[in-house]
């Protein structure tokens, strides 16, 4: 595991002699040892897109099964596994890590930092997430995928009712990805608080950073709750604990409460990054500042805070008392207010602007209109009596896909198009981007629009088949066709990526500021150099980058004071001292699934898992702060700040 190093290094640099750090470099070795937040961001993005495609294939299978009455494509058992894994994959392995990709890549850049507070922990978060994602999907090969729904309601997830190992993979796998989320959240929380550029007060942070910050706080407090729920499930299944054993007087609603105490903040964990992204995109393309920055920030905080008081609206028919239903019904209704404020503020930002409908902007407007539909159907669920008709029908499926697909996936695609040049140094093709958007919009509405009707006509959720004669046939067929149109739009995106990469090969990177953007990350060249900023800028205002480019003349007209090329740094600084790569995050991450497999199949397997984990932890601690053999630049002022700014944990 260690490089052989010929040069001499001091005892101080290599405390235990063996735990050296790998050198930076190129190729796969660089990727698996990297602690660079940008590379980790890219890894998150790639892994998330991979799982997004897997989850999408599962969605297509679901739609094929339901295209016609009495469908036989999957069969009941397989259908239950596929819909469970579709939910688990899309939420935990696609949407959350895609948001994490943006958080990792952009938070340090937007606040003017060289990296996150704990670069190695950051790498660990990614590898642990990936290990968890692979672990859950291993269940397909090792005895069947989870079949109790992503919500895993007890006691249907107990060994009697779900005897395959699927739910064990679910409980342990989500626990593993939960570790990743929690560690990453603590890391980014500290980063936002502690590593802002001089002058960047909290209220000069871009809205995206703010929203991502709220998300990290939500994760910090929500992950332990699902962790406990999953522990209870795991102990029940593995060791015969009686948390959900109703024969002994246990209450099956315990799981539901714990799950949704986590689950509702989770909705905002998913949606706020997208809100943040479009809050960056819309002002840029409207050529106006965001309307009501303070309101945007505070409504984000309010959503995050109120998200803790509405969880039981998932349980209006579960048998909780009428007083609880009334209370949660009211709290749910009023969470619509801060969300509504956001939508109106985005509209006000565009209003009176000179709006360029480039592809990131199209996707953002898509978020506004599609999320509005999801939000409004959400209000109809808040009417708890009406929810007794709607819940667990396709009306709910329609609702949350308008929120999650319309509100989140569209936003994340806006982000992909917007920051692609930032990350890779070339633009994605605009024309294909627009086609991508329109195809996705049509496919999305064809798939999920009819589900409102199906739900109101009484089609239950999570059914693997339905009989003819209930009026479900036509709309199901439309939805299935729509789902393939969505698949086509994702294919268009992938083709766009491939052709754009090919087109850009051999050409110089695109300019530093393709969109006339506003925030700090665009002050570095495209693609971002390894050290981010040549010199940490001092921030004077919100939209610092924009204000360095544009000023006002005597008549109040906006005039250019500098070109983007002048404002942007050259990215040519040398000798910037960056945290060194490390093997141990990856080694640690490999240990966890082994531990999990050991718990499920054979306790002996936990031994190598445990050894890897303990070794990795101790090696990590005793690993020198820096690569003793790595290049050391001249220590001028800026460099001091870097080595101090990024801690060694």
């Amino acid at each position, binding site marked *: 595991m260690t490089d052989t190093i010929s040069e001499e290094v001091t005892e101080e640099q290599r405390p235990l002699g063996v735990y050296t750090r790998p050198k930076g470099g190129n190729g796969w070795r660089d990727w698996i040892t990297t602690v660079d937040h940008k590379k980790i961001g890219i890894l998150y993005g790639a892994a998330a897109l991979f799982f997004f495609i897997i989850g999408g294939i599962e969605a297509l299978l679901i739609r094929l099964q339901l295209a016609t009455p009495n469908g036989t494509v999957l069969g009941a058992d397989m259908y239950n596994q596929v819909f469970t894994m579709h939910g688990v994959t899309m939420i935990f392995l696609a949407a959350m890590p895609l948001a994490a990709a943006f958080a990792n890549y952009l938070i340090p850049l937007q606040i003017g930092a060289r990296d996150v507070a704990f670069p190695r922990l950051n790498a660990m978060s990614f590898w642990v997430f990936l290990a968890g994602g692979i672990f859950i999907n291993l269940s397909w090969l090792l005895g069947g995928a989870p079949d109790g729904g992503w919500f895993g309601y007890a006691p249907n997830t107990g060994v009697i009712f779900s005897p395959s190992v699927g739910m064990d993979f679910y409980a342990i796998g989500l626990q593993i990805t939960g570790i990743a989320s929690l560690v990453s959240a603590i890391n980014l929380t500290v980063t936002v*608080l502690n590593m802002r550029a001089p002058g960047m*007060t909290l209220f000069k942070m871009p809205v995206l950073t703010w929203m991502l910050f709220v998300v990290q*706080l939500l994760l910090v*407090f929500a992950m332990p709750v699902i962790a406990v729920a999953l522990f209870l499930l795991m102990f029940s299944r593995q060791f015969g604990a009686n948390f959900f054993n109703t024969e002994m007087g246990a209450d099956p609603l315990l799981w539901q*409460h714990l799950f949704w*105490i986590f689950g509702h903040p989770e909705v905002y964990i998913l949606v706020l990054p997208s809100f943040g992204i479009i809050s960056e995109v819309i002002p840029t393309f409207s050529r106006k500042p965001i309307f009501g920055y303070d309101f945007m920030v505070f409504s984000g*905080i309010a959503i995050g805070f109120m998200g803790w008081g509405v969880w*039981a609206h998932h349980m209006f028919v579960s048998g909780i*008392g009428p007083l609880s239903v009334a209370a949660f019904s009211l709290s749910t209704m009023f969470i619509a207010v801060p969300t509504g404020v956001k939508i109106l503020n985005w509209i006000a930002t565009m209003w009176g602007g000179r709006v360029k409908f480039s592809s990131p902007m199209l996707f953002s407007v898509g978020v506004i209109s599609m999320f509005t539909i999801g939000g409004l159907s959400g209000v109809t669920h808040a009417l708890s009596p009406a929810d007794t008709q709607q819940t667990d029908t396709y009306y709910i499926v329609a609702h949350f896909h308008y929120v999650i697909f319309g509100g989140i996936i569209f936003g994340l695609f806006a982000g992909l198009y917007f920051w692609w040049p930032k990350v890779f140094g070339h633009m994605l093709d605009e024309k294909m981007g627009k086609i991508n958007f329109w195809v996705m919009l049509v496919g999305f509405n064809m798939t999920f629009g009819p589900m409102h009707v199906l739900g109101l006509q009484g089609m239950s959720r999570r059914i693997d088949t339905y009989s003819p004669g209930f009026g479900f046939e036509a709309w199901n067929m439309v939805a299935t066709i729509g789902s393939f149109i969505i698949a086509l739009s994702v294919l268009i995106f992938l083709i766009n990526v491939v052709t754009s990469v090919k087109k850009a090969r051999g050409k110089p990177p695109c300019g530093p500021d393709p969109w006339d953007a506003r925030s700090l990350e665009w002050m570095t060249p495209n693609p971002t150099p390894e050290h981010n900023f040549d010199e940490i800028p001092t921030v004077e205002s919100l939209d610092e980058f924009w204000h360095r480019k544009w000023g006002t003349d005597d008549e109040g007209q906006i005039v250019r004071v500098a070109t983007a090329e002048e404002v942007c740094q050259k990215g040519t600084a040398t000798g910037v001292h960056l945290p060194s790569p490390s093997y141990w995050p990856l080694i640690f991450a490999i240990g966890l699934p082994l531990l999990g497999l050991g718990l499920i199949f054979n306790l002996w397997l936990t031994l190598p898992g445990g050894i890897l984990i303990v070794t990795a932890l101790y090696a990590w601690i005793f690993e020198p702060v820096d690569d003793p053999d790595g290049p050391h630049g001249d220590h001028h002022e800026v460099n001091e700040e870097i080595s101090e700014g990024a801690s060694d944990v």
Partner: protein
Amino acid sequence: MDTSETTTDVEEEHEHHEHPSDGKYMQIALILAIITAAEVATYFVHIGDALIPTLMVMMVVKFWIVAAWFMHLRFDSKMFTRFFVSGIVLAISVYFIFLTVFEFWTEG
């Protein structure tokens, strides 16, 4: 969630108050020991309806003493207190509602 306050974010004064002396720590530990003794005494001496409130008050006092003195929250940055208190307040309110929904308080 209360990190939204604007006033404290930059240049939070770097507090280096003198930490208590070892003797002071011993005194605090003595107080903790006395409260614990009082707590345990309630097991043997019956005080009726006042029992649970008394126990809760003593518990909170002990908690507060350890957090404030041993964990240095009294002397350290308010940011730390904020995160800890956020966690505690959120936990108490969420789980209080949780138990209320289960009609835990009325069941006795």
